[in-house]
């Protein structure tokens, strides 16, 4: 129970007035001594006083904006807690063909933005967090069930990006966001990138320990630019099979070696990205405790209705009032 305008509660003592003062017209009568105590009359007298108290108190409560506090209740559903780890390097602003976006073709980042937003909106019970990475990892939105802020964070991903792609530290950031989140349920990281750099040995080891500690599903959506290396293909003869020459292939190998549920998608166009995201949606259907918000409920209307009822009672009593004086006889009191 909360009050949106609690200052009105200072008026609450006024509600005691009906206990001391009557609201009926007073008429003089020589003596009451001759009457026996009438229980019914007393009961009616008290009922009218209480009706007065109720009318005043509920009007004041209504003015104070009495309301039920916003609550969250836990429900069971299907879904996951997902951290979207999004590449903000400058190459994301090019098209899948590796050109500057023109009217006909959209850039990789705006395709990713459109499709990921659809995904976030469709997934009713999931909670999302957003991290970005480029030269440095960036904490954007912690895992939350407020969809609005997640969508506005995704809105920002097609802004001009920075130079490099440090996916290792980005993953470490995503893992630390998962670590901070205390809710139960399946956790997943969706990594969206268009090409990666070598993940250093030290960071590889750190990631290996982190992933071993926590069961996290990892999805890697590789937005492959036309002509770029595929992460699945065997290296062509004559090409060195090193992380420096083929970073995507070796990152994929590293993820496979982590022994966590891992899926890699290579998307060369928006339709393929859509396919990958739909697939992730199908896979992330584990039972989940999610919270549902019950918004604040305004009770002031009910308070006014109660006041109206009490006033109705007083009005009924008023209508029953009869004067002791004969009609037409000159009276002293009104």
């Amino acid at each position, binding site marked *: 129970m909360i009050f949106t*305008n609690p200052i*009105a509660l200072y*008026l609450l003592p*006024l509600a005691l*007035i009906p206990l001391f003062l*009557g*609201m*009926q*017209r*007073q008429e*003089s*009568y*020589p003596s*009451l001594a001759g009457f026996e105590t009438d229980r019914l009359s007393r009961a009616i*007298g008290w009922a009218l006083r209480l009706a*007065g108290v109720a*009318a*005043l108190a509920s*009007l004041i409560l*209504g*003015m104070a904006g009495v309301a039920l506090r916003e609550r969250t209740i836990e429900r069971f559903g299907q879904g996951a807690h997902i951290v979207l780890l999004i590449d*903000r390097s400058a190459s994301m602003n090019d098209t899948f063909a590796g050109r500057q976006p023109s009217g006909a073709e959209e850039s990789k980042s705006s395709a990713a933005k459109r499709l990921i937003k659809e995904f976030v909106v469709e997934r009713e019970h999931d909670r999302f967090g957003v991290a*970005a990475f480029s*030269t*440095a*990892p*960036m*904490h*954007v*939105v*912690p895992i*939350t069930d*407020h969809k*609005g*802020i*997640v969508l*506005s*964070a995704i*809105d*920002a991903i097609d*802004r*001009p990006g*920075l*130079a*490099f792609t440090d996916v290792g530290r980005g993953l470490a950031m995503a893992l630390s966001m998962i670590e901070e989140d205390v809710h139960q349920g399946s956790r997943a990281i969706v990594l969206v990138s268009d090409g990666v750099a070598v993940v250093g040995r030290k960071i590889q080891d750190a990631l290996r320990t982190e992933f071993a500690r926590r069961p996290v599903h990892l999805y890697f959506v590789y937005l492959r630019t036309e002509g770029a290396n595929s992460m699945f293909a065997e290296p062509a003869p004559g090409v060195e099979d090193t992380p420096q020459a083929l970073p995507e292939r070796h990152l994929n190998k590293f993820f496979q070696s982590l022994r966590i549920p891992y899926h890699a998608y290579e998307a060369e166009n928006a339709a393929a990205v859509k396919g990958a995201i739909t697939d992730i949606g199908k896979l992330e259907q584990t039972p989940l405790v999610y919270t549902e918000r019950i918004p604040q409920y305004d009770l*002031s*209307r009910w308070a*006014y209705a109660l*006041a*109206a009822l009490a*006033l*109705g009672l*007083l*009005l009924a009593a008023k*209508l029953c*009032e009869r*004067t002791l004086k004969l009609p037409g006889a000159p009276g*002293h*009191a*009104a």
Partner: protein
Amino acid sequence: MSFAGVNFDRRMLLLLGALAATIVATIGIHIIRDQRIADVLAIVDITGSMNTRDMGNPRGSLNRLEASRQALIDMMQDLPCQSRLGLGIFSERISFLLLDPVEICSNYDALEGAISGLDWRMAWQGDSFIAKGLYSGIDIASSLKSDLIFLTDGHEAPPLPFTGVPEFDGKPGAVEGLIVGVGGSEKTPIPKYDDEGRQVGVYNETDVPQDNRIGAAPKDAETREGYNPRNAPFGAMPTNGDEQLSSVKTAHLKDLASRTGLAYVELQNVRGIAPKLLSSTEPRIVPVNTDMAYVPALFALLSILALYALQLIERAPMRRSRVSPAVFEF
């Protein structure tokens, strides 16, 4: 006065009035009121000098970045609902947008989490070309059609070249908002961190560039010791200075504010930045549906109180004018 057998005395009228007003309050009166809101992009400087601990109360309990985060969270509490806040960071020479502006009340805890997540480790480079960062922040704000709050200590690293502040090529005043100077006025050492993020002392004089040696040399360079047009165009001697110490650069920030048409406010001198933000930007008005049910309710309340008060004012003359002292309450 009597009608259809009912006696309409003043009590009856007051009671009927109270009942009618209460019924109106139950149904509810809604009026559309104009509410002044803010729609603002906050860009926080996360470069190294923002780690200087010279803010908070007592002085030194917070570093500048923590003070900036706190100021933004406080501002969120001071702004009315339906205001929107976006978030960006500044490092090197550009501002980087993290979040488009989003409504503050319904996203409060997530937005607070996002603000608390701002960290100097997110910086991608050590340089701090504040003027350029501010100009790119203004570009982002103008593309979002929002106002701008730029929180910085104004400490340029490396120092500005002799040519001074780079020109602002936008239209001054096209984007409104605030430059918030964060930091104390006394020169304070800047903490230094190692690769793993542990503090390892503070910067000393030789750790930071003391003057700007990028671009053309100033006119007086020829008179400097060891000057050589090819090998030492800036002279051969290292410049002495105290760039390793940092304070809020009020004059520089005021200059930037006047170039860009923003207002300047210094965080150490104000309790909150929300009032200054609202007073220095063009009002953004949204219609808000306001429930005015308290007006008829107040009327009903006063009527009922008058009803009971009648007994007080009527009792006294009755006693004086009547022969019989007995007062009967029905």
